[in-house]
């Protein structure tokens, strides 16, 4: 056991020297996270603001005007008045407006009455060709209606509790950046970690040093653990960089437990680093390894993590399939801890997910490690 630890330590120390002397690894570890965060964080902005909204107010009361004022002040919509129903169709067909809002006569009277069974009515027409935008408009509009409702609520009225009220908990502004940056940290940290280790074993094969390693009594487990340690520290540094950028540059609030978040990062990063080692152990070629690492690091984090396609909307098979990917679990942990004050209990399954993945990958890297030099 002491021999085991000594060998692990010397492999780690050797690897640490490689890192310090190899500009490529350092660039990957230190510059790439900045580039990724900048690229994804600023380019992927799903926020829709100042959308053009055609409006026809057929009520023309103080209530309807107050409602339109709320629409304006939300910042999401720029209003253009409409004259006649024909113009509404035309506007939508010309594709220069995503939505049309028509307030029906009697809107003000009904709202003031506060009768839930007979509310004031307004019609929202949205351009379904961009269904993401259309649904976002609906969500925004519902929020504005709720706000307006609140304004005209009779003092102490019973109706308040009976109304449907949608509030966006944890992300009150429904800012997509709040939603994206914690998810991005999943992609970036995972990809970086995989790339950091993907080259290390392949490099030993290519420059011949594997022959030296294999002729000594050192064992695969010692090599794998020794290689994990320095890259683990490097990857944790990247975690902190991404975290600080999220808080300072993107001004994302962090509501959860920092310790819990760091623990999750440590486990997640270990799994990703070990996956990189598995790739390196199996390919034994740097070029193949880096291509593999890129594909394996990038695709599942976008497709199966819930980053872009919500998991709840997937067919049953794929919902289970995503469980294989640690990105899915870490994304959940990251979003939850950034935007809510959740403790460990609700995240336990996710922790199991990333933990199991890490263990399986380490075991796989050890057992797939080739101990002879047969080509």
């Amino acid at each position: 056991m002491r021999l085991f630890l000594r060998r692990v330590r010397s492999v780690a120390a050797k690897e640490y020297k490689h890192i310090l002397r190899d500009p490529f690894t350092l660039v990957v570890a230190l510059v790439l996270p900045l580039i990724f965060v900048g690229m994804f964080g600023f380019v992927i902005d799903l926020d829709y603001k100042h959308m053009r909204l055609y409006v026809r107010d057929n009520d023309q009361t103080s209530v309807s005007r107050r409602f339109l004022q709320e629409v304006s002040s939300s910042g999401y919509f720029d209003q253009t008045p409409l004259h006649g129903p024909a113009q509404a169709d035309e506007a939508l067909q010309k594709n220069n407006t995503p939505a049309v809002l028509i307030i029906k006569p009697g809107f003000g009277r009904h709202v003031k009455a506060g009768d839930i069974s007979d509310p004031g009515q307004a019609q929202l027409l949205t351009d379904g060709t961009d269904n993401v935008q259309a649904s976002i408009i609906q969500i925004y509009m519902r929020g504005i209606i709720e706000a307006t409702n609140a304004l005209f609520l009779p003092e102490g009225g019973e109706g308040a509790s009976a109304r449907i009220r949608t509030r966006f908990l944890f992300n009150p502004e429904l800012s997509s950046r709040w939603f994206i940056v914690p998810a991005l940290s999943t992609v970036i940290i995972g990809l970086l970690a995989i790339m950091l280790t993907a080259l290390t074993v392949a490099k030993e094969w290519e420059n011949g040093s594997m022959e030296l390693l294999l002729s000594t009594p050192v064992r695969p487990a010692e090599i794998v653990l020794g290689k994990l340690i320095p890259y683990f520290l490097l990857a944790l540094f990247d975690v902190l960089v991404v975290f600080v950028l999220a808080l300072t540059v993107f001004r994302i609030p962090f509501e959860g437990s920092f310790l819990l978040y760091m623990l999750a990062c440590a486990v997640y990063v270990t799994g990703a680093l070990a996956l990189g080692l598995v790739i390196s152990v199996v390919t034994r070629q740097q070029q193949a390894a880096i291509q593999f690492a890129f594909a394996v690091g990038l695709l599942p984090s976008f497709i199966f993590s819930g980053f872009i396609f919500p998991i709840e909307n997937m067919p049953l098979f794929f919902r289970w399939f995503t469980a294989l990917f640690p990105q899915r679990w870490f994304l959940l942990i990251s979003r939850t801890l950034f935007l809510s004050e959740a403790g460990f209990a609700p995240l336990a399954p996710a922790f199991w997910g990333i933990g199991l993945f890490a263990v399986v990958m380490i075991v796989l890297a050890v057992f797939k490690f080739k101990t002879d030099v047969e080509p």
Partner: protein
Amino acid sequence: MSIESNIIQVENLTVAFGGFKAVDGISFEVKRGEIFGFLGANGAGKTTTIRCICGLLNPTSGTVKVDGKDVSSSTSVLKPRIGYMSQKFTLYPDLTVKENLAFAGSLYGLKRKQIKARAEELMQFIGLTQHLNEPVKLLSGGVKQVVALAATLLHDPDLVFLDEPTAGTSPTTRADFWRLIRTLAQNGKTVFVTTHYMDEAEYCGRIVLMERGKIIATGTPQELKEQFFPQPPVELVFSRPEISRVRAELERSNIGEAENFSGGLRVRVNDWARFEAYAKEQAGVFAFHPVEPTLEDVFLKAVSGRKGA
């Protein structure tokens, strides 16, 4: 008794890569404390055989035993006793000489103090005192080889494999290397060395000649010379300038193979009776005298003998 005096015992070893047999059913043994030479052209199967003995490659068939233990089943016991210097340079180019040695030593479980003491001892032995803090990639080919040797000897193995240790180095380095190899053997180590320089093989206690995966001759240098040259090679000194005619006639009639050397021919005679008759017939053209055969002669004759057969 024979098992104890043999440190390596190889029986019917075959290693196939796909359909290609890199090593084809060879058997030999290495005695404890000898300098054992493994000779042959590139691609003869020398490195493959060494890798099998070091436990770096699994034989397709046959057995390899070190100290009576099967290599494939007791690698962990045997590896600490074996020092293997690969033909390829296997140290880390970005680490310094010291760092490389410290790393190699630590994998054998040596403590830092032990490594330091041992490295100093080795450096004296090898004569490497400069460059210790230089990255290995900056060193010249010869110095690199010396450092690689130091890394191989650091854990004081009693069985040392040197795969083409002198390939591509200067004559001085080659001479130094062989001085070291002889010292190692004097200190009781078994040295298994491959080379394709036939002159180096003279230093070996025993030799195996390999060609295309097969062993074509085994013995001490002296035994091999006697075996292949019951009659020694001869040098022909010419009194008339008819070297090329004589050479052509000798080879056409298969009396022997000839090579030009300064002002004459060196002939490995195949058929002594016919050669003597021919020499008598050409008495006015050349005179001849026997010379000591070299291992180069042995190798060439062994290879050509196989081609004829």
